[in-house]
Structure formats: C-alpha cells, structure tokens
C-alpha cells in the first residue's frame, strides 16, 4: 500500500519535469503543435497514477467508515450516503500501544538507515579512489551478494544472536538491516562516486589533503544525491519491514509499528477495519520522508546508472 503511494510522486515529477519544460519552451499551456503524443503521454501517466492512488484513497475512505458498512458496501458509496466515524482510529490507539510502537519504529529505522550509509560511503570511497590488490574481486563479491535472498540468513543470524544474547533487542535488528542493505548501498554509492571528476580529487591530493579530508570535505558533499536516494530506499524498507522485525525483535515492548499493526487483526481475520486506520497512520512518516527528500530522490534515481 505505502509503496504504491510513494511511487506516484516519481511519475508526477518526471512527467512535469519533461513535459513541462517542453511546453514552456514552445509557448504556454497550449497543446503541442502537431504532436498528440504529449497528451497521450499525459493520459497514460494519469491512468498510472490513478491505478496507484485509487486503492490508497479507498483505504483512506474505508478507515473512516463504520465496520458494518465497510462489510456490506464498497468505499465509494460514501459519496452517495456519507457516514463518517473516527471509531477505527480510537480503537487502534486504545487496543494497541501505537505510541510506543511508533517510537520503536523510529528507534529501529533511523540507525538502520544512517549506519549503513556511513559504512557504505567509506567503502564506496575506498573502492573508487584507492588502489589495492583484489579491489575488483572484492567489488564483484559485494555485487554478487545482491542476489542472495534475505531469507537464507534468517536462521543462522537468529542462532548467532542467541549465542550473543542480543536476540529481541534493537541491536539485533539494526545489524540485520545494516547487513542486508549494505551490498546495494555500496554498489549504488560507488557507481555514483565513479562519475565524480577525478581531477578534483587529484588537485586535492596535490594540495596535501589526506584521504580522510578528501572524503569528508569533497566526496560526501558531492555525493549527496546518491546518499539521499539510498537513505530513502533504506528508510522505507526498514520502516515497512515486518519479516525481520518479527524474527529478530518479535512482539513485546520493543515491537515496531508493523508488528503492532498486524497484531490488531484477530485470528479469524476480524477487526480488519482497524488495519485501514492503522495502515494509514503508519504511512504518514514514509510519505513525509519521501516528500521532504524527493528532490534528491529524482536526481538520485539516475545515480550510478550513467558512468562518464
């Protein structure tokens, strides 16, 4: 659901960026001279947006409808026979400790986003600007790790955590997410860094900058789009994650929102109307994060894709 909503602004953005600049250049809002394709493109993009937005809208509307009505008629009937309630929301907050779960989610997501970026940026710098034996081989190994499914690591990790006595703690889930996110992070950031002009690094070297200075003063500021776009990827992934959270944290006082949410559902699926309200609530943060970072996101999407 949430991935659906966050996907739309990209399309909107790219749409307005390309189509908008074209039309402006050719003069105002009028349809393009001789070309029907921009209109056609806009219709297709509009349809695609609707495909993603309508289910989310349905979710939002349903969350405000009484359960009985939601069971007996579709959400669109709200427009003909409006009846609105906040019951679902008050139930969600009274039945589950959403406040605590929210704090837990933040406590899990923020370190699990920042730490891998930091490590991956170091690693990417090394892979891009330092020469050492076996560098390419190591890089290939890391890229190869991209195809390893997360699930194969669950049981061994759980065993390890058990031996270390950290199962069920935040540390356990951080480490898991850091590990799972690392290959993509290194790959993405390294490919971006490879596009940075070598001359700048060389001139910094001539001026006597150490690797560390070059990294902090030059490379990091220049790599912001790639870092930000990976930050969004990782943030959304960790925030929406249920699988790893269930296994490494589990229900209880450390549970994130996803677990709190799914625990609202009864054994035979009763109480699903609570999920609509709870689901919408958990979507708020990802939407905010996305909207505030989306200008990096659009730039960052091309990060590493064109080397030159």
């Amino acid at each position, binding site marked *: 659901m949430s991935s659906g909503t966050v996907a739309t602004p990209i399309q909107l953005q790219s749409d307005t960026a390309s189509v908008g600049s074209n039309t402006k250049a050719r003069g105002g809002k009028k349809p393009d001279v001789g070309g029907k394709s921009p209109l056609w493109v806009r219709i297709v993009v509009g349809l695609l947006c609707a495909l993603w937005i309508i289910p989310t809208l349905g979710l939002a509307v349903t969350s405000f409808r*009484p*359960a*009985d009505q939601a*069971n*007996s008629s579709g959400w669109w009937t709200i427009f003909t026979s409006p009846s609105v309630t906040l019951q679902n929301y008050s139930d969600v907050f009274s*039945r589950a400790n959403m406040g605590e779960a929210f704090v837990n989610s933040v*406590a899990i997501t923020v*370190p699990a986003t920042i*730490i891998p970026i930091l*490590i991956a940026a*170091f690693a990417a710098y*090394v892979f891009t600007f330092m020469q*050492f*034996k*076996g560098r390419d081989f190591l890089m290939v190994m890391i890229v190869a790790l991209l195809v390893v499914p997360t699930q194969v690591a*669950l*049981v*061994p*990790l*759980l*065993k390890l*955590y*058990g031996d270390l*006595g*950290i*199962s*069920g*703690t*935040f*540390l356990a889930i*951080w*480490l898991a997410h850091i590990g799972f996110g690392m290959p993509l992070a290194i790959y993405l950031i390294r490919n971006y860094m490879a596009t940075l002009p070598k001359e700048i690094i060389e001139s910094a070297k001539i001026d006597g900058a150490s690797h560390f200075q070059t990294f902090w003063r030059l490379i990091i500021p220049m790599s912001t789009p790639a870092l930000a776009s990976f930050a969004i990827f990782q943030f959304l992934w960790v925030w929406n994650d249920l699988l790893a959270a*269930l*296994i490494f944290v*589990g*229900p*209880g*006082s*450390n549970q994130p929102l996803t677990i709190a949410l*799914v*625990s*609202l*559902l*009864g*054994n*035979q*699926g*009763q*109480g*699903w109307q609570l999920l609509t309200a709870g689901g919408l609530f958990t979507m708020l943060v990802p939407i905010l994060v996305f909207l505030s970072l989306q200008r990096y996101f659009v730039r960052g999407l091309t990060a590493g894709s064109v080397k030159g």
Partner: protein
Amino acid sequence: MRNRSTIGAAIAVGAVTLLTSGCLSSGGDGGGGSNNTSNEIELMYGFTGNQDQVFQSVMKEWAGQNDVTIQFSPTPDFNSLINTRVQGNQLPDIAIFPQPGILRTMAERGVLSDVSEAVDMDDLEANMLPGAIEAGQGEDGTQYGILMSSNIKSVVYYPKAGAEQAGLTTPPATFDDLLSLSKTVAATGTTPWCFGIENGPGTGWPATDWVENLMLINYGSDVYNQWVQHEIPFNDPRVLEVLNQMEELLLAPGETNGGREAIASNNFQTAGNPMFDTPPGCYMYRQGNFLTQQGFFPDAVVDTLDDTVGVFPMPGTSADSSPVLGGGDLAGLFSGDNESAQKTLAYMASVDFQNKMAKELTSYLAPRSDVDPANYPSDTSRNFATIQNEATDWAFDGSDQMPGAVGSGSFWKEMTAWIAGEIDAQTALDNIEASWPAS
C-alpha cells in the same frame, strides 16, 4: 594496509552500535530457551486482538501473585515463526500451539518436554473433554501438550426472527431431519443455507470443516481419525459419499444463498449476515463458535446476541448421538526444568484459569467440563459449552492435523475448485490423495 583499515572500520562500527544500543534497547533479553532457570519466562502464542488482551490480563494477575514474570509474545504468524525460532535455537519457555500437527513436529525434533510432570494428569483425565487429552499426545503417547482453550465447529446459527415462518421450529434431531428441514425451508422460496468459503489466501478452509463434520457424523471418530491420519486413503469411497451429501444439502440449486457459484467468492466472515436482513436471505449458517465475537455478525446483532441468534448442534445420524468437531490451543513446554514455566502451564490447565477466561472472553470455550456454566457471559456461549460437554463423540479438526501440504494446501484448493464447479468430487479427492506427502 587493507587489514588495518577494515579492522579499524569494524571497531568504529562496533563502537557506534554498542554505544547507541546501550541507550535504546530497553531490557528484553530475548528470554526463553531450555536453559532458562529464572522466573522470567517467555510465552509465545498465535492469537491476537481481543483474545490476546484478555489472556494477558488474566495471566498477569496470576503471575503477579505467584512471583512469575511472563514476557508475552503474541505473533500472528505463529507456525512459521516458531519454526524459525526452533531452527535458530531461540526457544520460548512455553508455546501455545493452534494445531496439534505442529506440536507433534516439534515433539519429534525433541525440543518439547513431557508435560505430565507439570500438571495433575488425574485431574485432567477426570475433567477434560474426552479426546482432548489425546490431542496433545505424540505418536508414542507422551503428553506434549495440554488443551487450554477449545472451540467447536459443529454449530449451526439461525436468526430467531423469521425462523418459525420458515419452518425452523425445533432443532433437527437427526441428520435426516436436517436434510428435510433444508428442503422445507427451500420450499418457502428462500435459500436455507448461508455459505461462504472466501478468506484471501486461506480460501477453502470453511469447506473442509463441512467435510470433516459430515465425516464425523456419518462414520464416527474412529473412522474419522483413521482418515485424518491417512490410514485410509483420502479418496476413500466414504469420503466421496460425504461430498455427494454436501452437494445435496448445500450445493444443489436453491439451497445456498447466492447459488453454488457465489460460495467461493463469498467471505466466510460475513456470509452469515444475510440471515439478519428483512426478510432473511438465508436461515442457517454452520460455522465455529468464534463467530459470535465482535467483527463478524453486524454490531447490532452482536449486541443483542441472545435475542437475535439461535444455535443448534449439527445432529448425528440418530437422535441419541451428537458428535462434535472441535479444536483448540495446546500449551506445550520447552523449558521442562523451569519451575515457573511448569507452574504457568499448570495454571492454564486449571479450572481457575478457565473460569476466569470464560467470564471475560466472549469467544472462549473451556476444554474442562467442570467450568461453572454461570461464568459464560451469554446464553449463547452457555449453549456452546453444553453442546461441547454433552458430545457423545469429540474429534479434533482434521485439516489442522493433516500435513501442511494437505491440511492448509490441497484440501483447501481442491474443495474450492470442486465447489466452484471446476472439477467433480472424485477428481478433487484424487488430487488431494495424490498431494499427500510420502512419509
């Protein structure tokens, strides 16, 4: 050079994570495991929502008085999570299994302890439902689980308003009576049965309950259990006979609300709701006793349950037989040597616990027959208890005991295909038989 920098990075990362984890992770040592000797135990189970809340409050009250600290781990995806945790050697101290099948799998792995030491077996033998003790036994007869809650699936709901006009005056005493009642109602022009088997990825399971009910009614628990244990093939002619019975009772034109085609897409949660329309769209809905909880029938019906909804048990072949298909949650012990875990398990098997649960949880049904009926919150739940306790034959839900590939796989799928009219009954049964894993 390379070594130094990687080690340095590792140390830096380690320091960062350790420092921050110190601030953020609050307690939660993960608990559990067979080497836990403290009085802090982890209790893992698969029920959520309201059931979970009431259960926790009852357990916390007891634990506070008995110097036990319980860490509750309710998880919606119990079966896969317990498997992962066992493989990862992260055992809870007690787990409550929703299905005997998975309990037996765990017992075979050797991670479960014998519970007969922890509980008073004589007391349970005397007061538990017949058959309920056996449900928690492994193949060698060792007691690995104790039923701490039960449910029944041999209940038919009907709307009190309008039932009489439709000809539903007395509960059918025999299965033949049920058949003729069904015909009587159908003759009034309204479909007698509500039936829906849609449940997302779980679509089809309500149909398996029907098949199991009819197997039990027609052939008794001995043949039923042989069928469930695969001692007789799944596509035995007797099973085909049952499916034919179902076709006559439920699937024939005019028998089910919406017709045969609608069953597979009709959600089981709300399939019974047309009973409360005026005039009713159907008159009888067979489903488990859990259906009286908030969230299935319309809220107005749930609020006036005793006045609006009547229940009768699925009848046996003769007036003096009343077989009941049931189920329940089995508590199993991972930390056999932990005294607190033993005490906790014993409490869940006790009449005290079950009295309290009966009083506070609408959907709870006690597997002990000595629970005071006055504790049940409504006449409807008292009826359930009576139906369960007066059963002449009690059998555990079959699909829950079959191997997962069948019990939550082909049995669901083939029944759905058959009901939707895509394949005939014989093909469905043959397909299920073919899917039974070779052991």
